[in-house]
Every structure is written in structure tokens, then in C-alpha cells.
């Protein structure tokens, strides 16, 4: 089985936000929630870089570790998913997450935050693959159809890579070798405790 990861080649990202839009549309993500976003660092200054970020599907995921009701699970492809039926909306995953991935439909309402929502790596949830219930709660399950996450597939500059960690790391290494530079795999050290030496 593959070990699925995301890799954003920041030297290619042009902040077009196609990944953000593709994700919102594919999964019919509700208002106020963005499973993926593009953050621009040093905006307008020399050395500016944009990075597309969503749930990184961490190794030994902090969200899963702190969840009081143990609603997270890791698939055979190492994708970190959760059950909205079990989630109580306590907010702990959102304190623990290094990437700001978990979000709540009702942030600010003291009685309930609602069920947590985050990137599913286009792999749905615990319901039957491709079922109506799964689509309504988690969005499309592209992985079950043999497709990769739509954000990476839609990326206009192929900056965002999704797939098996070793394969996308190899693609990135080849790019760095060919063009002679690379600012590294953003978030990898935090998420996977490893990085791509280049």
C-alpha cells in the first residue's frame, strides 16, 4: 500500500487558488469552510512564496491522538480520516493540528461548534465508498475510484503534488536537480518527521 502525502513545490505555486476552488466545488464544502487554502509569505517583498496547505495526513497524527472520543482513523493508504457521527465538536483536534486543518461549521457558537470538517484526501469517510451518505458528510471519494485528490490534479503549474510519498519526493528531487534550486517540502518535517534533502 502507498503512503499518501501532499507536497507543495513553493517555487512553482503562483497563488492561482485553483486547488482551493476545485476542492470546494468537488466536495460541496459549506460556506465558511476551506479545506485547502493558499498562504502567501512575504507578500509583495523579495523572496515571496505561496504555499497551498490542507490537512497533511500526518504520521502519528496529533488530531487523532488528542481526540477525546477517538473518532479518527488512518486508512491503509495512511490517509487520516474521521467519523462525523462520533465527533462531538470539542475543538481539541484544532488545538493540536500544526496546519490549521480542522474547521467547524459553527465557530463562535458556545453551545456547539458542529461536526468538525477537514480535508479527506478525496477519500470520503467511514460510510460505504461512493455512497450518498458519504458524499453528504465528507464529499467525493475519488481515491476509491482510483483517482488522486482533485486539488493536485487541477494544479495549473503542477506545483501541488499528491500521491505516494516516495514517488512525489522523487519527482520533486528531479525538478530540483534540473532547475538547480528548491525551497524544500513545506510542512514535511512537522507532518512526517522527515524532509526531502535537495
Amino acid at each position: 500500500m502507498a503512503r499518501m502525502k501532499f507536497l507543495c513545490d513553493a517555487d512553482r505555486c503562483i497563488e492561482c487558488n485553483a486547488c482551493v476552488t476545485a476542492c470546494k466545488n468537488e466536495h460541496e464544502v459549506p460556506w465558511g469552510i476551506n479545506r485547502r487554502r493558499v498562504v502567501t509569505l512575504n507578500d509583495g517583498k523579495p523572496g515571496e512564496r505561496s504555499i497551498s496547505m490542507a490537512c497533511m495526513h500526518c504520521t502519528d497524527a496529533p488530531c487523532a491522538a488528542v481526540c477525546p472520543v477517538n473518532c479518527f482513523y488512518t486508512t491503509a493508504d495512511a490517509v487520516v480520516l474521521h467519523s462525523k457521527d462520533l465527533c462531538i465538536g470539542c475543538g481539541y483536534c484544532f488545538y493540536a493540528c500544526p496546519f490549521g486543518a480542522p474547521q467547524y461549521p459553527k465557530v463562535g457558537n458556545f453551545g456547539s461548534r458542529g461536526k468538525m470538517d477537514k480535508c479527506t484526501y478525496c477519500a470520503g469517510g467511514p460510510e460505504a465508498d461512493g455512497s450518498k451518505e458519504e458524499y453528504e458528510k465528507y464529499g467525493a471519494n475519488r481515491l476509491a475510484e482510483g483517482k488522486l485528490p482533485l486539488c493536485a490534479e487541477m494544479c495549473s503549474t503542477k506545483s501541488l503534488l499528491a500521491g505516494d510519498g516516495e514517488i512525489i519526493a522523487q519527482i520533486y528531487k528531479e525538478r530540483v536537480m534540473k532547475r538547480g534550486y528548491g525551497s524544500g517540502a513545506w510542512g514535511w518535517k512537522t507532518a512526517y518527521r522527515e524532509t526531502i534533502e535537495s
Partner: protein
Amino acid sequence: MVSFARFVRAAVGACALLLLVVAAPAPVGAQQVNPTASSVKEQQLLQELNRIQGRVSIPDERSGVLEQPQGRQWREFHNVTLRWIGGIAIIGMLAVLVIFYLTRGMVRLESGRSGRTLVRFNIYERFVHWMTATCFIILAISGLNITFGRPLLLPLIGFENFSEWSLWAKYAHNYLSFPFTIGVVLILLMWIGGNIPNKVDVEWLKRGGGIVGHDHPPAYRFNAGQKAVYWIVVIGGGLVAASGYVLMFPFYTTGIEGMQMAQIVHSVVAVLFVAAMIAHIYIGTIGMEGAFEAMGTGEVDVNWAREHHSLWLDEQMARTGPNDGRPQPATAAAE
């Protein structure tokens, strides 16, 4: 002339070609500039601030925080440190109380009951006490469930049942925080008069408070132990309430780091608070004869007051006399 013009044209062309060849290496050199030399670097940004923040074009500005690895430290606190602190505080307190009860037993009324009573807590004081106490017990159980439920209760009742129970426990925890906070404020205001530490407390503590040994050091309305409970409730209650509201209203006052800090304060104070209240419940029920009546019926036996709050009894006697002239209970009159 024509041939000369041709020669000039050829010479100019040759010069231009030569210039082009000489100038050509310059653009080749420019291509070797490394664009990442001046770019932002992840490890450098993390070392500077321990978080990376930028600009986003979506309306949710909070999502501009790209990375904040300190969630890992908070995770370590929540999953390991807090469970140790809570476990030691609560199980330790229970163990101490069980050992104490088995060796010392209930603190008896040494002079027996007089049958005459006097009012210790009026109906308003008892209402505030029990409102706060009821909220506290539900808040404590639902709070401990968040920290200890997953390892202890979830394996017993299964995922669905545990989630259902935890969801209701969370609602109770959020909504009951309001009457609890009001109770803490009222306790602060209504009993502060009797709870300022003074010299009598030093003497009381030196003589072991009548808990250790069989001494009965003098005390006003509240002895040093009760004053300690009062200040634990007021300060501890204030801290859990303030930190709790920070968590209940995310992003109103702080960002994620502030909420991690608030959760640490909230949970550490809460488990110590629970341990202290277990001791309070013990001494108010099976730990001391005649103590529960003070908060139950609101009236205590005069002999109980003489043994445990002699200076308070003197004050009350000087003001109204015992029993407020009420008839004595029939059972006591037979003695």
C-alpha cells in the same frame, strides 16, 4: 564606391556579430542565479517565531497561519502530563481520605448533642452552595470524561455510546458553566467577610485543626480549613471560568496558542479543584459528625458549634442567644 559601401556594411556586420558573441555569455550567467537564495525558508521562519503566518485571499484571515508545530507540545501535555497530574491528585486524595477514615474514623461530637440548635447558613446561602455544588459535580464528571473517558470508559461502552454520552456531557459542561460562574461570584461576595485570614487561623493550624488529634482549637464562623476551601473555590473557580470561556468562544480573545494555554490552565486547575472538593465533600459528610446539617437543614447543634467554632458561638450567643427561643426537639428533650 559601391564596393567600399559593401565593405563598410560587411565590417559593421562583422563587428555586430563579434559584439553579440562577446555579449552572449552574460544571459547564460543570469540563468544560474538561484531564486531561492533570497526566498523565505521554512526552518528559518519556524526558528524565529515557532509559527509561520502569511496572507490569504479567502475571507477567513485566521487561515493565514500556515504552520504551528507547538500543537505537538500541547498534545504531549494533554495525553501524558495532564493524565499524570489528574491521576495523582484525584487518586492520591481518595487514598489519603480512605487511610484517614480507617485510622481516625469520623470526628465525633465529644460532648454529645445538646438538642439546642442555631442557624449556621440561611436559605439563601444554602441555595447558592447547592446550586454551585450541583453544577460543579456535573462539570467535574463531564470534564474528567474528556481527559480520562477515552482510555477508561470508551473500551467499556463502545464508540457510539461513548460519543453520545460525551456529546451530552459537553453540552452540560458548556451550559452549566453559567450558573456555576454566578455561584462562584455569589460565594465570593456573601462569605468574604468571614474568610479573611487572621491570627486565630495560625493558632488553629498549629493545633492541627482538631482533625489531626482530638484538640478543639477556637475558630470564628470559618476556620482556617474552611477559609482554604473558600479561597480554592473563589480563585480556582475564577480561573476555570475565565479559561473555560476563552475555549468556549474561540478567537474572540486569542488565537490557537492562547487557546492551548487556556486549556492547560483550565485542566490543571480543574483536576486540582476536583481533588480539593473530594476532601471538602468527605469532611462535610462522613468525616465529621454534625457537619452536614450546617448545609442540610442550615442549623447546627450548639455543642457542635462549641467544639468547632467556639468564637462564632460566643458571637451568636451575645447577639441572640441559642436556638432563637424555639422549642427543643422532642427526641433531644428526653435526655
